[in-house]
């Protein structure tokens, strides 16, 4: 194969048909540009939403489900084994919220290789007292420094800091909704009462905002010890253990293991967020469907233009063949035209996509759910650019294939006779 000549002829054809060439190349440019922009933006959004979930949800959550004991005392009594046992009004046992042996479990978890970290929490149902009004809500006792290490909780503390809570025994990170309802600010005091009626004053050291109104209107954070004290429970009273893993893929298997090993309920993140995957998949599907549609349109453009060109260049093809160019040579001349259109259009598409992505990346975007976010999220992954150019090459290759095969089989005798 004699590439310099073939490319030279291809180049000359393209240059003399500048308008058609430009149209065809622009088709590819828009297709690829749209793909890059969409996929970068969509993935940026996906990642943002994933982060939202991943950072607020532990990989594995251990707690005790409130449920009646399966083995009622009567079944332990051998004498009744062969009789029909009827027990009415079974109630769950008191104090079941507590995870048994929570502290040893916590220590064990922290030593496991797969586990990045584990934090203990105490959840308490309480009332926030504001004048004569009682707002019901939750108070969560946490090891705040460990929480901030393992999740991006710090991002959600919009005023104050986790350190302030850590050093202040009676401190509270108040939910932002609660703060505005009760018109409280950092430094103020808030009174809470337990279900049993005991009242405690706490000092607001920070405001917490998750972006989810329901949570912000009811939930606040205190130190683990503070909540234990409020509930009048001992240091080993722990209702929840949140676990972060090194590899999130292991969550389902480990969760099952923990359930058996520790006799607790364990939910893993995949279980908790199954719907999330679906959303991500659908967004990806839309991105690729739109991009492929655009590329198919661009492909038809190339196909059309090459067909036209071959029709116009019938005579030239006949001459080339008469002077010793083989069918393959002629095919490669037109294939290279398609590929040149594809490469030029594709590279311009990458540039266009990049520019649009940068523009989108600069558009201001504020959401309460992600306080650290100031502009639209865009994912600049090199992978999309690689996929984009491969896409462009494949589609132009397919579009160029049929016309070039036609050119290959043109019979020079027919053309020369025809004139």
């Amino acid at each position, binding site marked *: 194969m004699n590439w310099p000549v073939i490319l030279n002829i291809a180049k000359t054809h393209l240059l003399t048909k500048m308008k058609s060439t430009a149209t065809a190349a622009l088709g590819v440019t828009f297709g690829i540009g749209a793909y890059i922009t969409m996929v970068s933006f969509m993935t940026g959004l996906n990642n943002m939403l994933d982060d939202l979930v991943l950072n607020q949800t532990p990989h594995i959550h251990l707690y005790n489900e409130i449920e009646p004991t399966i083995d009622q005392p009567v079944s332990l009594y051998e004498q009744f084994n062969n009789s029909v046992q009827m027990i009415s009004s079974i109630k769950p046992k008191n104090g079941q919220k507590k995870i048994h042996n929570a502290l040893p479990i916590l220590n064990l978890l922290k030593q496991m290789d797969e586990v990045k970290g584990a934090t203990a929490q105490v959840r308490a149902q309480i009332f926030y007292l504001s004048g004569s009004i009682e707002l019901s809500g939750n108070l969560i006792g946490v090891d705040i420094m460990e929480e901030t290490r393992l999740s991006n909780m710090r991002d959600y503390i919009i005023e104050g800091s986790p350190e302030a809570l850590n050093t202040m025994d009676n401190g509270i990170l108040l939910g932002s909704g609660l703060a505005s309802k009760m018109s409280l600010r950092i430094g103020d005091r808030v009174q809470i009462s337990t279900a049993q009626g005991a009242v405690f004053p706490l000092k607001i050291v920070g405001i917490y905002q998750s972006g989810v109104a329901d949570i912000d209107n009811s939930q606040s954070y205190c130190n683990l010890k503070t909540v234990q004290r409020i509930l009048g429970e001992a240091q080993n009273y722990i209702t929840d253990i949140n676990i972060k893993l090194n590899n999130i893929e292991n969550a389902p298997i480990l969760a099952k293991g923990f359930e058996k090993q520790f006799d607790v309920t364990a939910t893993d993140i995949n279980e908790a967020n199954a719907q999330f995957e679906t959303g991500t998949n659908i967004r990806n599907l839309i991105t690729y469907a739109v991009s492929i549609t655009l590329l198919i349109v661009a492909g038809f453009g190339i196909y059309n233009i090459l067909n036209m060109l071959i029709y116009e260049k019938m005579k030239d093809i006949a001459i080339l063949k008469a002077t010793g160019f*083989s069918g393959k040579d002629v095919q490669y001349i037109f294939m290279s035209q398609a590929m040149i259109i594809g490469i030029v259009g594709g590279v311009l598409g990458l540039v266009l996509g990049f520019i649009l992505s940068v523009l989108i990346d600069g558009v201001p975007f504020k959401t309460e759910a992600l306080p650290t976010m100031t502009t639209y999220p865009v994912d600049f992954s090199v992978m999309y650019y690689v996929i984009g150019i491969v896409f462009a090459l494949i589609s132009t290759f397919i579009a160029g294939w049929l016309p070039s095969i036609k050119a290959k089989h043109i019979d020079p005798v027919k053309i020369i006779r025809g004139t």
Partner: protein
Amino acid sequence: MDIVLEAKDINKHFHKPKDFHVLKDISFKIFNGEFASIMGKSGSGKSTLLYILSTMDTEYTGELFLNNKLVTGLSATELSLIRNENIGFVFQFHYLLSEFSVVENVMLPAKKLARKSHQEIEHDAMQKLKMLGIESLALQKASRISGGEKQRVAIARALINNPSILMGDEPTGNLDSYNSDNVFNIFKQLKEEEGLSLLVVTHDEDFAKRTDYIIQMEDGRIVGKSSNL
């Protein structure tokens, strides 16, 4: 003398619109350095024969030898190489690639052959153009020169790879008598100075009479061969 081109019992049929026996038992030889012409009524099969001899048409029976080598039955790619290397073809209509310059048109078959460097090919092309008296047009676009000039460019292109034989299908058919004369003289000169073999289909009696001999065709048959020497 060596045989450049030999046809043995060539027969060809067209099947559409109905079966038509266009070439019947064509056999003849052309020796090295001969300048032969083919004459015959319109429709007698001259062009059809020339397309077969130039290896562009492969749908025939019989055998075709080029430089004593059988070319019948070779693959399309092998045949295109043979055309590139051994056969120069000049059409009635000056087929040039209109987007290329004159010299690029001439260089194209040599670039395809790729036996010489770009400089050598360019030098050869300029030499051929000079021989045909059109070196001043070298850098013109092929679409911007006259018919007579185009035909000379086509001849230069046919000669660029120093072929064994030059074939022409009414190469002067579209030219006035002055330009026809010019083309004839070029052919004659090529035969005499370079020892080139030529086979030219023509309707021009004067032209034919000045060639070495005339092959007469009628209804797809060779009916006579008259020497002018």
